[in-house]
């Protein structure tokens, strides 16, 4: 693996070939906000919040840092007027779906996002896919997945698998940035395996 030399926010950073900009930045102590990123999972590039500005060969462009590979002579800017404006817009759109999410509200305060800018369409899920990918890639259980597509895309537990796997696991719960996952699980559990609720202490 050869070494790559690039600039992040004006500082020289050494990285290994094949790393993403996000990984290089985090290693160098520069924080980039993310929602759909998780170290144990394949990069997804879904939330677009980690958007940064990259200058290569004299041209500057906006890229999604969690899936964009590092290269020599890149100059990365992690905060600029344009980047901040995009992050603010993404947060405002996501807040229309999950207006009470602490994670989103905190990021919203940092980027000056107005949580009431768009009409509420409270689905509570922002389709980051963390639960779906964690269940498939790490736990290999496939208990939760996506249904439908486009604006109607949603997460859903498959009751038969959830009844078998989820009660002992629930490792995806803390990953969820909006708590929509817990709600989906409670719905499935109450419909699909009501008997399990009596055995467990009321922890939820």
């Amino acid at each position, binding site marked *: 693996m050869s070494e790559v030399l690039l600039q992040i926010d004006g500082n020289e950073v050494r990285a290994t070939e094949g790393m993403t900009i996000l990984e290089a930045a985090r290693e160098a102590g520069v924080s980039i906000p993310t929602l759909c990123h998780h170290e144990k999972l394949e990069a997804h590039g879904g939330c677009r919040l980690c958007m940064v500005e990259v200058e290569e060969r004299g041209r500057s462009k906006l890229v999604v840092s969690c899936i964009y590979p590092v290269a020599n002579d890149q100059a990365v800017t992690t905060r600029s007027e344009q980047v901040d404006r995009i992050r603010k817009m993404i947060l405002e759109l996501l807040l229309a779906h999950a207006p009470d999410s602490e994670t989103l509200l905190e990021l919203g305060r940092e980027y000056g996002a107005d949580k009431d800018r768009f009409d509420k369409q409270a689905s509570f899920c922002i389709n980051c896919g963390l639960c779906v990918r964690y269940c498939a890639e790490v736990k290999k259980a496939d208990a939760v997945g996506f249904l439908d597509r486009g604006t109607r895309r949603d997460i859903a537990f498959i009751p*038969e*698998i959830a009844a078998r796997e989820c009660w002992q696991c629930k490792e995806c719960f803390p990953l969820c940035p909006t708590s929509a996952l817990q709600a989906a699980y409670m719905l499935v559990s109450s419909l699909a395996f009501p008997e399990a609720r009596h055995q467990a202490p009321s922890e939820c």
Partner: protein
Amino acid sequence: MDSERVDQIIEEYQCEASALIQILLRIQEEAHWLSRNALERVSERLGVSMTRIMHIATFYKAFSLVPKGRHEVHICVGTACHVRGAERVLDSVEEATGLKPGETDLDLKFSLETVNCVGCCALGPVMQVDKKTYGKLSAGETINVLQSYE
């Protein structure tokens, strides 16, 4: 569709998980929908999780998780057909079958859908029944066409 027929279809594709969509399409074509039993059988035989199958079955419009009629009626309401009177064709089909777009009748004869372009705008207004295309339709002709189906 009984599970033996589902098995037959799966075996035609040598139980290959990569043929999942082809298998689902074949089941959809023959049974006009994907029943829960059929999907569970496919999941079991191919070793593909039910989550993944549901994701695919809900993603593509070609699949239906509720029973569809023997004949699929598609009325084009794209721009060209709309200008050429797709509304009248749609109204007469709705009148003749008693269906709204997206619905299927009780004896599973017709399913009605609107589509946004079938790629032959010069023939507008266009209706497709199963895979046959009928062009330059008047309201009267539309009803005659539907009556020719059993």
